[in-house]
């Protein structure tokens, strides 16, 4: 017994060392990527680099936020099957402070950028905007003056601080309650989690909504859509579910989830993923359809711009590849239970989620003609930002993962989850 014990310990130790080595590499790559991106902001086409960084940031943040919402939903529904997959999600919420830090760098960059170099146009009164087909400055824009009580630098800064405060605060409480339950097996932690989830889902819903309005919708501050926050939420949920599949399968690969994460869990995630695929399409369709049908120029231009140049093909790609392909794929039972197929569709969904963010963010900068200044394309700086932020996220995840048990061993529903059948 003692020999097998030491054997296990030794393999645990080597595993941990390998994990730490991996985390360190991720940190190095992430740091290098971020430094390059910073260089790009200073020497490159700065609005393009800034928008690319925002895309990378929202991509990784949306995964974290989606997982955070899923954790809260699992607690609120007292879900049984999901306990084993909840733990990796809890680790993923450790990325919030780092994302926040990078976000503030981007924010300061946009605040202090020279004229027309920032990404949120309204931040500088000398920036150019198109008002009724004519170029003007933000200062001369009546629409800006109407909105300036909300869209001003100080308030924007405070709000961003508040959003990250909510994300980090609630996620930390939920995470540490779950970690502490591993130690003492006290059912009271579950009650703590449920209460904070109830509060968190309301706070988080509002914070994520206004965050998406501030960070993405206000890039083109003339435009508005009441459903925009729900669009962001639906995309985040899809990204989070896809990332969960990838992470869980990787954990099976490295060993800690072997025999823990089973076909039945994969199937459940597949089902939820199908549901949110439909939900995303529903929200995206509602927004497009209502704007298309009413055809009011003050909001229609947003979509008209996104049919300009190669953005037209991006829009179609979203319709067919971000909805139809995953929808039809996930309809079939066999596709939801085979790890290889689920891995494929998860990577697919993440790729098109990224494209969806491009579609929403990148055309925001207008040329003097009013058409999008940038056509769709992936620049070198997009890659550095994506890899840089991603590296930091992976590092934060692995660091947290190595410090805890792979599954919440004392969660009241852990056996239900381990013994889950379809």
């Amino acid at each position, binding site marked *: 017994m003692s020999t097998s014990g030491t054997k296990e310990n030794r393999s645990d130790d080597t595993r941990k060392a390998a994990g730490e080595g991996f985390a360190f590499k991720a940190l190095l790559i992430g740091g290098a990527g971020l430094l390059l991106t910073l260089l790009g902001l200073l020497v490159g086409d700065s609005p393009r680099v800034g928008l690319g960084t925002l895309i990378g940031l929202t991509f990784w943040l949306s995964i974290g936020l989606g997982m955070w919402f899923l954790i809260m939903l699992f607690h609120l529904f007292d879900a049984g099957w999901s306990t084993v997959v909840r733990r990796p999600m809890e680790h993923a919420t450790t990325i919030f402070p780092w994302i926040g830090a990078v976000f503030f760098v981007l924010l300061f960059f946009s605040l202090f950028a020279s004229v027309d170099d920032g990404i949120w146009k309204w931040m500088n009164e000398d920036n150019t905007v198109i008002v009724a087909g004519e170029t003007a400055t933000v200062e001369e824009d009546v629409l800006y003056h109407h909105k300036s009580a909300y869209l001003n630098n100080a308030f924007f800064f405070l709000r961003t601080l508040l959003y990250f405060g909510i994300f980090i605060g609630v996620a930390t409480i939920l995470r540490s309650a779950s970690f502490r339950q591993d130690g003492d097996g006290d059912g009271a932690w579950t009650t703590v989690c449920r209460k904070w989830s109830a509060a968190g889902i309301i706070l988080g819903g509002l914070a994520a909504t206004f965050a998406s309005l501030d960070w993405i919708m206000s890039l083109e501050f003339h435009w508005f859509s009441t459903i925009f926050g729900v669009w962001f939420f639906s995309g985040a949920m899809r990204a989070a579910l896809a990332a969960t599949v990838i992470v869980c399968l990787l954990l099976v690969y490295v060993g800690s989830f072997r025999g823990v994460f089973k076909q039945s869990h994969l199937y459940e995630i597949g089902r939820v993923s199908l549901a949110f695929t439909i939900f995303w399409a529903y929200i995206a*369709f509602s927004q497009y359809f209502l704007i*298309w*049908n009413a055809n009011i120029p003050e909001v229609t231009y947003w979509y008209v711009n996104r049919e300009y140049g190669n953005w037209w093909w991006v829009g179609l790609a979203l319709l067919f590849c971000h909805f139809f392909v995953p929808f039809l794929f996930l309809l079939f*039972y066999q596709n939801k239970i085979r790890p290889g197929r689920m891995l494929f569709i998860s990577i697919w969904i993440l790729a098109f989620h990224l494209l969806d963010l491009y579609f929403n963010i990148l055309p925001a900068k207008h040329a003097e003609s009013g058409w999008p200044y940038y056509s769709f394309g992936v620049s070198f700086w997009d890659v550095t930002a994506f890899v840089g932020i991603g590296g930091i996220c992976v590092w934060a995840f692995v660091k947290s993962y190595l410090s805890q048990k792979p599954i919440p061993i004392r969660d009241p529903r852990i056996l239900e989850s381990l013994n889950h059948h379809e």
Partner: protein
Amino acid sequence: MSQEKKYGLIAEFETPGAVMHAAEKVRDEGFKHWDVITPFPVHGMDQAMGLNRSRVPLFTLVGGAIGFFGGMLMIWYMNAYDYPIVVGGKPMFSPMYAFPVSYELTILLAAFGTIIGMFLLNRLPMHYHPAMKHEAVARASDDRFYIIIESTDPRFEVKTATTMLKEIGGQNVTQLED
């Protein structure tokens, strides 16, 4: 001779667990024409009986596809081909405005497909069935569980089947009239 008129054998069980374990054994004996009668769907019985996944989804898919494309075609024919007229500055045909109705028709015909598929695969309605002649089997819709082995099964032989049903815990093993 008289035995050939019999439909088969029926045995009673008291709990879902008992009937499921018994079903596993009947399956392992290699019987093909047999059935389990339960008041509610017993979880895990599909595997215990060795049934394949139901084929109802195929009917659903066919119904849904007919609904969606039929709807689109109908709207195109009515509003853009047979009697084109401009309304509200909208195009004669666009998948956008045709979507809501086609969507509803998808759901409607998929639901029809599902229900038709279920009835066809189950051979229902069938108001006469030998199992329903058995007095006690009325309790199958209340709180009792039964296993029926049909005489058409190639492995069926009254004596051995009776002993087997008793061995696996069946009570009141009796013959069913056809």
